[in-house]
């Protein structure tokens, strides 16, 4: 290596280090007079990577709630995590120690929320997830909240839904991740407890688009209903298509991950699909979402995102500033949110209700 390149590398390293020192110094300086400025709220979730569409949908809900308070009262700072644990940890640490946020809304994927939870607890900052449904989050610590009910509730709800429609032989197709496994465990156990039989239980990778052999196994088990648990629209669309092509003519049920415009846009394959979903929002919320987002219906977890931000707003308007104050304020809250009645129990969980939707003529309509 000659001297010129050595010199150039040296310059680059110095510039990068100086730049980082400067940015960090600036952040440090700006945060001092924060007491009078807006309250900073962090947001973490996937804005790139395969779960990005969920992140975007939640972000729209959060923004709607942020607009309700006087301009300049709160400031949202977004960090992308790709739904990955390591990124979520980095983002949470950055939001807490550099931006000095008062609370953080997010993470979407349960695994990433669980990875970020210890940091939030250690630094006494509220982390309030609008979408992570893992039962384990209930025990994640006193600073961890969520506006979406735990899978222990939805799994049982789904099992009863299928059973009460008169089906006794259920096949489950679920994604091999925190969400799919947790949901399937509860669903299968409850369905058996009710007296039904789980005839097949097949799994696939989160982003697989070829699940033909799994569907073939399901077909061979002769179920009278299939429950599809997946949190990725791409996989959901592919699975629905392949179920139809392989001639599995049974009633289809899906978890809320299937409540995505991509699923209805995929044509005739989703017709008749019954989706049990955490609430997609009151009619008032849906109308407002349409009005503020060029007519678009709220995506998955948009209502829960709205409620998370609304809860934070209420805590802050009540005067809470530190993590401890906000956590205490959240526990005392009780309000009618976009997804139903919101009040947090001692685990930071909400009771939450579920909608049952059915796809008719390419649109989700409430099932009777």
């Amino acid at each position: 290596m000659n001297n010129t390149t050595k010199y150039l590398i040296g310059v680059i390293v110095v510039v990068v280090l100086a730049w980082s020192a400067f940015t960090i110094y600036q952040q440090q300086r700006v945060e001092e007079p924060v007491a009078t400025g807006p309250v900073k709220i962090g947001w973490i979730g996937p804005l790139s990577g395969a779960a990005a569409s969920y992140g975007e949908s939640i972000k729209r809900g959060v923004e709607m709630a942020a607009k309700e308070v006087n301009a300049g009262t709160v400031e949202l700072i977004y960090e992308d995590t790709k739904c990955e644990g390591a990124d979520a940890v980095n983002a949470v640490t950055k939001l807490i120690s550099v931006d000095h946020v008062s609370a953080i809304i997010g993470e979407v994927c349960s695994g990433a929320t669980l990875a970020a939870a210890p940091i939030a607890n250690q630094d006494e900052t509220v982390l309030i997830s609008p979408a992570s449904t893992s039962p384990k989050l209930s025990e994640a610590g006193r600073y961890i909240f969520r506006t979406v009910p735990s899978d222990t509730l939805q799994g049982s709800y789904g099992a009863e839904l299928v059973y009460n429609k008169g089906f006794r032989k259920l096949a489950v197709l679920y994604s091999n991740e925190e969400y799919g496994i947790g949901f399937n465990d509860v669903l299968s156990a409850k369905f058996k407890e009710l007296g039904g039989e789980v005839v097949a239980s097949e799994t696939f990778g989160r982003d697989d688009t070829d699940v033909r052999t799994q569907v073939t196994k399901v077909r061979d088990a002769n179920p009278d209903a299939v429950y599809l648990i997946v949190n990725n629209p791409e996989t959901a669309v592919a699975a629905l298509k392949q179920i139809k092509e392989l001639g599995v003519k049974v009633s289809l049920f899906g978890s809320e991950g299937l409540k995505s415009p991509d699923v209805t846009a995929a044509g005739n394959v989703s017709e008749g699909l019954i989706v049990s979903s955490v609430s997609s929002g009151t009619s008032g919320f849906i109308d407002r979402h349409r009005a503020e987002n060029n007519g678009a219906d709220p995506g998955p977890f948009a209502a829960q995102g709205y409620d998370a931000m609304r809860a934070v707003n209420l805590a802050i308007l009540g005067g809470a500033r530190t993590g401890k104050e906000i956590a205490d304020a959240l526990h005392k809250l009780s309000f009618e949110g976009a997804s139903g009645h919101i009040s947090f129990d001692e685990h930071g969980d909400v009771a939450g209700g579920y909608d049952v939707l059915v796809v008719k003529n390419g649109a989700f309509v409430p099932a009777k």
Partner: protein
Amino acid sequence: MDVAQIIANGLIAGSIYALVAAGFSLIYNTNRFMHFAHGSIVTVGAYALWCGFTKFNLPLFLAAIFAVAVATLAGLATYRVVYRPLVRRGASSSILLIAGLALLFFFENSIILSFGSNVKSINYFVTEKGVNLLGAAVTPLQISIVLLSVLFLILFWVLMRYSKIGITIRAVADHSELARISGINTERVQELSFILGSALAGIAAVFIVLEQNATPFMATKLVIKGFSGAVIGGITSLPGAILGSYFVGLMENFGAWFLPSGYKDAIVFGLLIIFLVIRPIGILGVTKGVRE
């Protein structure tokens, strides 16, 4: 068990892998590095098809040609803008591999920025229950995909075997030093293999969009399956790479039948290791010109 159905599932998957693997192996043979961004070329083709069909309202046939053309240009661009300058500066094959991975990120995120991250379907064919073919339910589209990919692969093989271009490419693949001495412009040939390989990726893209859909994230998975197929079959041999891809498609589906389906991907990598241990050059591979 549904042997016929599993075979059908394996062949459908294998056809797509084979189109990816053939291009991958062609580029590897003349350039001697792993072009990991090859999967991204498929994504670019898929979005070109979607744009052509839904935005410019082209008939499907023209949209498909447009997609292949765009994929070819994208492949050529990766060579001209990234790989060739790197090679000229003496980059080793591991640097080129990293560059390919950086390109993979680059394409994935450019596509999210321009088209959003949601799933794009063109819904050209109405999804119906497949027809019964020897006990397997397959749709007419799937039958045509398998037949057409075999046709394209045969055409490609004939081109490589008998045409002047093909012979030149193979000369460079077998012994690039000797080819250069006998007056072949090896850089030109390397560029040509990027063009041909990317065109095949474009054809794969058309089939994938028709059969499944397009998303910005499809590239990584495809390139991993494609290169596993190519290596198992023998990356230095074109028929080997194709055969290997069908083998991968069949084995992963049979494996998913017998094992818990979570191991579907592990089966492919397990096979890859077994082959690398027992027969590193693959089923039909030749040692000629392999970098030691």
